[in-house]
């Protein structure tokens, strides 16, 4: 279970607060969506969950399975099951995709007290997972994300997610830059990972992703606070009315 309690966050180097008291609880196995206008703090929340040090938590706490993760380094959070699918996946020239995946997977397995995978075991796993996401294994021999299209980068994020088997998946604007077909492949990949043991937080600006990844709950984030929560129908309502309501509220 993820519990975000009265979370206040600012940029480390500045004084301007971005998140001003977020309260959010997601039960195990649930998928929640956070929607909101640009600049509302959605991506900040995603990065704070993953442990980015550009942000400073000034008040409140984040509990994952009952334990605060605020003091944990990003790799320790990953070992505890946290995974952030980036809005803009990074390119790493000179590091082959397979090397990257294997380094990450085995580092996590060591921390989770599991045996490291041998090369044949690893390759078998990668082949299986990448086939499901329509990813050519040749692509993974190339440097991480270098020269990939927007869709390929997002699929490669979901492949990482599938391989690393997180229990808390945070998807930051995973739909941005995707065409209809790529959106379907990525959504299918995410849906395949839905399980009673896995908690998901899907961050998006548009409702269309939520047609594919149907959430249990929808929250509207604006001006650093959750303004409204509701069922999946809230997303449809927002599609009609837009975010104007929340903009005016603050004005």
């Amino acid at each position, binding site marked *: 279970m993820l519990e975000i309690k009265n979370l206040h966050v600012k940029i480390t180097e500045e004084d301007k607060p971005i998140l001003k008291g977020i309260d959010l609880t997601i039960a195990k196995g649930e998928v929640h969506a956070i929607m909101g206008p640009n600049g509302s703090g959605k991506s900040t929340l995603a990065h704070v969950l*993953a*442990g*980015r*040090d*550009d942000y400073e938590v000034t008040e409140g706490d984040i509990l994952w399975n009952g334990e605060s993760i605020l003091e944990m*380094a*990003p*790799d320790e*959070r*990953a*070992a505890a099951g*946290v*995974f*952030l699918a*980036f809005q803009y*996946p*990074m390119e*790493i*020239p*000179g*590091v082959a995709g397979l*090397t*990257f995946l294997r*380094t*990450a*997977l085995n*580092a*996590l397995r060591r*921390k989770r007290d599991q045996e490291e995978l041998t090369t044949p075991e690893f390759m078998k796993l990668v082949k299986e997972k990448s086939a499901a996401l329509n990813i050519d294994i040749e692509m993974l021999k190339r*440097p991480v994300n270098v020269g990939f299209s927007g869709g390929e980068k997002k699929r490669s994020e979901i492949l*990482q997610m599938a391989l*690393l088997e997180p229990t808390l998946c945070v998807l930051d604007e995973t739909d941005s830059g995707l065409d209809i077909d790529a959106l379907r492949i990525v959504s299918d990949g995410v849906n395949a990972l839905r399980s009673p043991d896995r908690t998901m937080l899907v961050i998006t600006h548009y409702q269309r992703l939520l047609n594919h990844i149907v959430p249990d709950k929808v929250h509207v984030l604006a001006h650093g606070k959750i303004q409204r929560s509701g069922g999946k129908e809230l997303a449809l309502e927002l599609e009609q009315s837009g975010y104007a309501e929340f903009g005016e509220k603050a004005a």
Partner: protein
Amino acid sequence: MSVAVMKTKAELSFAESFDHVQDRLPGSPAVKQVRRSAADKFAELGLPHRRIEEWKYTDLRSAVKDALPVRVGDATQMTIADVIVALGPLAKLETHRVVFVNGRYRKELSSPDQLAGLEFEDLSSVLSSGDENAAGLASLTARDDDAVLSLNTAYMTDGAVVRIQAGAELVKPLLIAHVRAGGEPGFTAVRNVIDVGAKASAQIIEAFVSLPGAAKEGQANAATQITVGDEAKVVHVKCAADTGDGITHLSNWMIRLGRETDYAGFQLTQGVSLARNQIFVAFDGEDTKLDLSGVFLGRGRDHIDTTLVVDHAVPSCESRELFKGVLDDQSRGVFQGKIIVQQIAQKTDGKQMSQGLLLSPDAEFDSKPELEIFADDVACGHGATCTELDKDLMFYCESRGIPSDIARGLLIESFIGEAVEKIEDEPIAEAVMDFARGWLSKT
């Protein structure tokens, strides 16, 4: 009125040692004469210092405190197993190996068979035989304004004299291993003279390594002359990976390229406290491709300098340089790349890049590209960058569960990988990368 310049302790010592060891240095009377004048030249020049433009960033006069005893006729006990240990990742390569220990050829440690198309002799024998042409003695004095080279000419004890026959394709790389061993610190001067015949194809690796337990300090002065015949293809790699605390590595590569040759040179420098790698390239024929690259790794107070001069003296040649340095603690990297495009050298295509990755706020990278272009129809460019590890990339790796030290290693490897990949031969590139990994894994 002349001003008497005070000679440093090291300068005096290098000059005086010559009188003591000259009778034991190999060579015919003619060679002895060449040595004598080189020693005199060195006595006159002294060690290069910061007031000489080319040595502005690397002041040997202040950095080299003393001259270590000159190694002549070394007889350090050594086995093939020792050589394999010293060679580290290079030992895994299938090579034809010639081994020198503390500046002396050791036949019993070298590959027993001769390689088809390759003629090898040790420089010591060649110098003694009086066959001055074979040792390239005529060109020894060509650059007599260089104090480091003068020191080499005066003291050189041994090295590989290699001839690759015209049209020959070496089936495996030639590995010239210079191993430092034994508990006594010393100064060694070695010279390799390599002649690649027309249309030949060869891979040549020079290694400067040490045996565990060798003295912490050491001074090496190494010179390699390589002449590449028309239409020949050469991969030439140097790994200066001696480890100690107080290792000085002074090196000169003098490269002459014929028509339509394809020459790729690479240098790895690590574990060395003070290094000056000089590379001089002269184009002798048109339509030739030159690719120079290198990686230098520094920590502590290491100082690693790469200085190259590429002389486009003929038209239609291509030159590429890519040098990458990783610098930690208070280490300092220096890159000076002078590209001369003479008036006659139209259609020259030259690109140069030097990049420093600073792992500490106290590290320093000085880069000086110098393009002197006298022709008007050329495409030449250069660039230099100096950066820290990318924070966004670090976070990306760590968010995937990769601990920060491993993420750091991965990103550093990715940084230097671009230069190492210039070595077209995959096993050699992998061995070079393994050397670098070994250095990176030590903190």
